[in-house]
């Protein structure tokens, strides 16, 4: 089932001359894990916000084309309507704390209270979101007393508690250490396996290559390529778009080791290990 259909999306922020998105079209299936990569100012965040309706409803500005999210036309729907279908997690965890709640548990309830979720449903939803992100032990702490990484997990959990069908994450692991970001990626992969559609902007290329079903490469507001991680990161022109392939792919490229079946470079450590062993035999 097509969950997201974008056709010819163009967008210009108010008071600017250049288009931030220059006619983007793509389709995403339900349950897919899509990674978005690209240089700074390539339109990644704008695209994320366009799926949520913040573009154009929050910013205004020039808008063209259409975005259909689960059958809803974003341009003609309100943000609060879309908030029930799409969850968006931003990069900076500090500004995602509502500031009106005294404990982490209540903070997670904030979105549910706004949606009008019944009280007896709130507790299990909040508890499972906290357990998924591994923050259950902070449930009675003040949100502002958490560290950056804990706050970032809380920000993700508070969107997950709202149980959206699509979750869009804009660099959700910027404050996390390597182990923490691995845990978050695994939690999100779990959601994806349960049928949630995941769209994630991330600079940690190795993680994107490992977890994504498909990767979208953006450059200056346009899609360069939208394909499997193996095909994207085996392109020869990645450097032109300011992207480096995962370290395993680069090593194998240097050694000239390809997967004999597909002719593409391996993306993950395990994959690279197998290919190198095969090559030596």
């Amino acid at each position, binding site marked *: 089932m097509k969950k997201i259909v974008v056709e010819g999306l163009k967008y210009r922020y108010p008071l600017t001359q250049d288009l931030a998105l220059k006619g983007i079209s793509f389709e995403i299936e339900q349950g897919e894990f899509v990674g978005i990569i690209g240089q700074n100012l390539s339109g990644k965040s704008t695209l994320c916000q366009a799926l949520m309706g913040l573009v154009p409803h*929050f910013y205004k500005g020039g808008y063209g084309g259409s975005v259909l999210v689960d059958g809803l036309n974003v341009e003609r729907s309100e*943000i*609060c309507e879309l*908030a*029930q279908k799409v969850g968006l997690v931003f990069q900076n965890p500090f500004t995602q704390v*509502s*500031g009106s709640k005294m404990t982490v548990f209540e903070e997670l309830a904030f979105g549910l*209270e706004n949606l*009008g979720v019944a*009280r007896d449903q709130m507790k299990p939803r909040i508890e499972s979101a906290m357990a998924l992100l591994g923050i259950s032990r902070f449930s009675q702490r003040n949100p502002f007393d958490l560290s950056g990484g804990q706050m970032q997990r809380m920000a993700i959990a508070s969107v997950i508690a709202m149980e959206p069908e699509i979750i869009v994450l804009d660099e959700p692991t910027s404050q996390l250490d390597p182990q923490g970001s691995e845990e978050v990626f695994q939690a999100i992969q779990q959601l994806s396996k349960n049928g949630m559609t995941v769209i994630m902007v991330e600079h940690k290329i190795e993680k994107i290559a490992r977890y994504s079903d498909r990767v979208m490469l953006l450059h200056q507001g346009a899609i360069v390529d939208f394909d499997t991680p193996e095909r994207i990161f085996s392109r020869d022109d990645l450097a032109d778009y300011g992207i480096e392939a995962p370290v395993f792919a680069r090593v194998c490229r240097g050694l000239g080791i390809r997967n004999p079946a597909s002719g593409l470079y391996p993306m993950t450590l395990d994959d690279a290990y197998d290919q190198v062993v095969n090559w030596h035999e």
Partner: protein
Amino acid sequence: MKALSLYQDKGTFIHRVDSRSKLLYILAAILIPAVLHGFTVGLVLMALSLFLLVVAKVIRKVIPLVGFSFLILISVVVIQGLFYPGNRHVWFALGGLRFYQEGLVFSAGICVRVLNILCAVSILVLTTRPSDLIESLVRLGLSPHLGYVLSSVLQIIPQMTSTMETITDAQRSRGMETEGSLLVRIKAFLPLIGPVVMNSLVNTRERSLALEVRAFSSRAKKTFLNPPPGGMVNQVLPIVLLLAMVAAVVWRVLQ
């Protein structure tokens, strides 16, 4: 964490009383002594408030509040004692200044009322979590948007203060003079306040985006995580307080 709140988490019985009852208690503490004549009622209510503050284990936090108001109250006593229009009988004289009985009695009445209000408000402020108070106001019909503004200010202003401190430290570590004469401080002010203001503007935009994402502008009927305050006390207390106020008014009218 620092918060703009005087709330003391002692977990006593008083802390568990619904904030609506506490609001009504403040109203009663203002209304009843104003309606009825004489000191006695005011003194009785004040004693009751102080007793409740002791039970709630927050009496020590009241002392600075009362101490601050004493500055004002002493000036009231002095001015009324000297210049109250109804002054007839000199009570005592201090180096040529004559204090009159009528003025002093009148000012004592004012003091009892002010302290009474202060103690009653202290019960609310010291024993109620700000977020609970605002939540109960929202339940009573306050706009959730206004409720959000009130409760977030309490946490976000301390956040801005700590941002200010971080920026001050950062500028100082780059060699800026932030201490010394007035001129030095004024010169240091602009480079400090600039980043703070810009930072807050950016943060405000990001926070309003994040609020939208969490369905803040949703028109669905808002629900609450915490159950509405129940229990016998919370049922009975508001009625008792309302009856007491009505009784005071009726008593006054009949007299």
